[in-house]
């Protein structure tokens, strides 16, 4: 089937402001938005977008699909296409557009540094962990740092969701010295935290579920 991709273009070296350009591509409905983008790229090799794993594990191809942040490689054409056969692709909101669909990711990676993003290992840790405790770490540890949760917030303000997920995953880790103290470190009120945890699964491409009991640490 033919699909019209309506892609937000911007070249900082020549353009006054972003504009939209249409590409007609031939795809199957079970193909992904990334497959469609790769075809548009063949039509205009100057089109810029990030991609790598094409299986929703590297987080490169995060962008805005019909106004909703997501991964291009994880979104099937049949789920993205509008009734009139179009898909609009824009860079992630709340990030600076560098070129076409490429945004500045440095603030995302930089934001991690505020939460001491590593396990501060206990001296007496003996390499054991109860399986039920280990299971709690599992889902938050699948974060791919794609930036979609950040882009999907109405107003991220001071809350940096990727860093929050990292901080919460570490707070749940019995090997970590900081543990519950991480919640103070993150300076996010408990009610906001609860809401964040509740809304995360539907926004996150990996459907991350942070165990609610982290709020009771």
């Amino acid at each position, binding site marked *: 089937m033919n699909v019209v991709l309506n892609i937000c273009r911007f*070249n*900082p*070296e020549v353009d006054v402001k972003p504009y939209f350009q249409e590409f007609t591509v031939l795809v199957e409905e*079970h193909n992904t938005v990334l497959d469609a983008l790769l075809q548009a*790229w*063949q039509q*205009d*090799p*100057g089109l*810029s*977008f*990030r*991609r*790598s*794993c*094409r*299986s*929703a*594990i*590297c*987080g*490169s191809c995060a962008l805005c699909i019909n106004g909703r942040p997501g991964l291009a490689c*994880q979104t*099937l054409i049949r789920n993205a296409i509008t009734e009139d056969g179009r898909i609009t692709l824009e860079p992630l909101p709340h990030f600076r557009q*560098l*070129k*076409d669909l*490429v945004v500045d*990711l440095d603030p995302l*990676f930089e934001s*991690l*540094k505020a939460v001491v*993003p*590593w*396990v501060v*290992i206990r001296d007496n*840790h003996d*390499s*054991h*962990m*109860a*399986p039920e405790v*280990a299971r709690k*770490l*599992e889902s938050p*540890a*699948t*974060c*791919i*740092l794609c930036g979609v949760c950040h882009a999907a917030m109405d107003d991220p303000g001071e809350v940096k969701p990727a860093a929050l997920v990292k901080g919460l*995953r*570490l707070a749940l*880790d019995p*090997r*970590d010295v900081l543990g519950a103290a991480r919640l103070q470190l993150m300076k996010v009120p408990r009610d906001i935290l609860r809401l964040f945890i509740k809304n995360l699964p539907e926004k996150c491409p990996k459907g991350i579920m942070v165990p609610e009991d982290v709020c009771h640490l």
Partner: protein
Amino acid sequence: MLIHEVLVVGGGLAGLMAALVASQKADVAVLSKIYPTRSHSGAAQGGFNAALGEDDSIESHIFDTVKGSDYLGDQDAVEVLCSEGPEVILELERMGVPWTRTPEGRVAQRSLGGAGFPRACFAADFSGHVVLHTLFEQVLRRGIKIYPEWHLVELLVEDGQVAGVLAYDLARARLEVIRSKAVILATGGYGRAFAKTTNAHANTGDGMAIAYRAGAVLSDMEFVQFHPTTLYGTNILISEAARGEGGYLRNYDGERFMVHYAPQKMELAPRDVVSRAIFKEIKEGRGFEGQYVHLDLTHLGEALVAERLPQVRDLAIRYAGVDPARAPMPIEPAQHYSMGGVRTDVWGMTSLPGLLAAGEVANVSVHGANRLGGNSLLETVVFGRRAGHRAAQLARQEPWPTLSAATITRAYESWSSLLAGRGQVVQEDSTFAIRQEMTNLMTNQVGVFRVGSELEDAVNRLAVLKERYQRLKAPGGMQPFNYALMDYLEVGYLLDLCEVIARGALRRTESRGAHYRLDYPQRDDQNWLCHTFVRRGEDGPEFSNGPVTITRYAPQERGY
């Protein structure tokens, strides 16, 4: 010019491990063409082999690996790999890796192909991902400088010694020289040389090809691993863990056909054996639509699939429209891993002083003619650690290698003029067209089953593609985020490697591990129990043979 004592190229598992170790004693930076957490190490699902179990032994791990390699692995290197496995797993555990646990709280282990014991430490089926992110956390902790979205373009060699690199910063569209005492390549494999591959778009063999162009020796490049179970059509990886957890392979008649090929190991025979079996079933008319077979997990129960294989389940539902807890998955083999690479010793040292390599880009050689599942992740951390250690040692003990203004100017000017290109964005011929022909050629003629006449034809056609490539102009010039320009470079790397792979495969007139010649179906220890070395000569690759290190295990017939 930028200056770092140790420069690591590649931000996957091997690269980050090397950087962490080297940073304890030297100034280190990581240069990577994508952000480190985007590296393809993160797509690895199954696990890290290490003989931790009470019934298991390092000896047994060594034997399984040697046998799996079809006796081409160097046994001294295999011994290092397996001996350091247990300690490196515990080191990762202390860094914070969220391993799946046994009821007693120990790191859980599962069975993968060709192993005598459940030996692969795992975190559900996100094993590569969680370790990659844990190492990245440690890189942040140590404050190691990262150059993300910088592409290596040339190793700067002066008087036979690597003295730094020329790199291209994609965002700022400019070339930079980085002077170093030691460069560690950890750039992974070249899966994108094949039309059917599990590999990411980024896996274009850059480091391997650039080392080859700089004069380093590559080895055993004809040995290419084809993973038996990738989703039919998209070739997205379905982990060997799916069979490790008890999955069956079935043909059109519903038969577990592995009984005819590996009656003891069945689905958990090594990958070369299983991939050949699948293609044989399809070829003899027992596939579905003449294209694929089934990987059946339906007897395992939804709970186990959800707990142990959540990613596999998601991938199958999304990309194949099949819930593996309820229906079998359509699967076909596809290129997955490069056994060959830049030849190194057990400390990661290559044939070029100042250049080290670790992980898939390297050939040390622990996998020989066929790698076992769970051994590549182990290799990345064991040999990444060793390369980092040796590089730091070099940084402390050696003076700065000479890097003359003449070398810098030559490299800078030739690359500036090449990249500026002045080529039209849309040309009559294109990297897209050349890439498509190259990848189809490799999958169809340099794949699981090889034959002399087709390999010869492949070599000839690759030469024509190379001529066409040389007539192209670099597209679009040095502009920020000009991915077409990077694509142009990457196709050039792949063409160099394809030539070496195809010619190596034509040259080796025997069948061993993943290299199977229909016209020479037997292993030939008399003539071919040897490594293939290749160096770039004026008229193309120059091949020679090198000895295999055999310490404990004399070659035997390899049955499963």
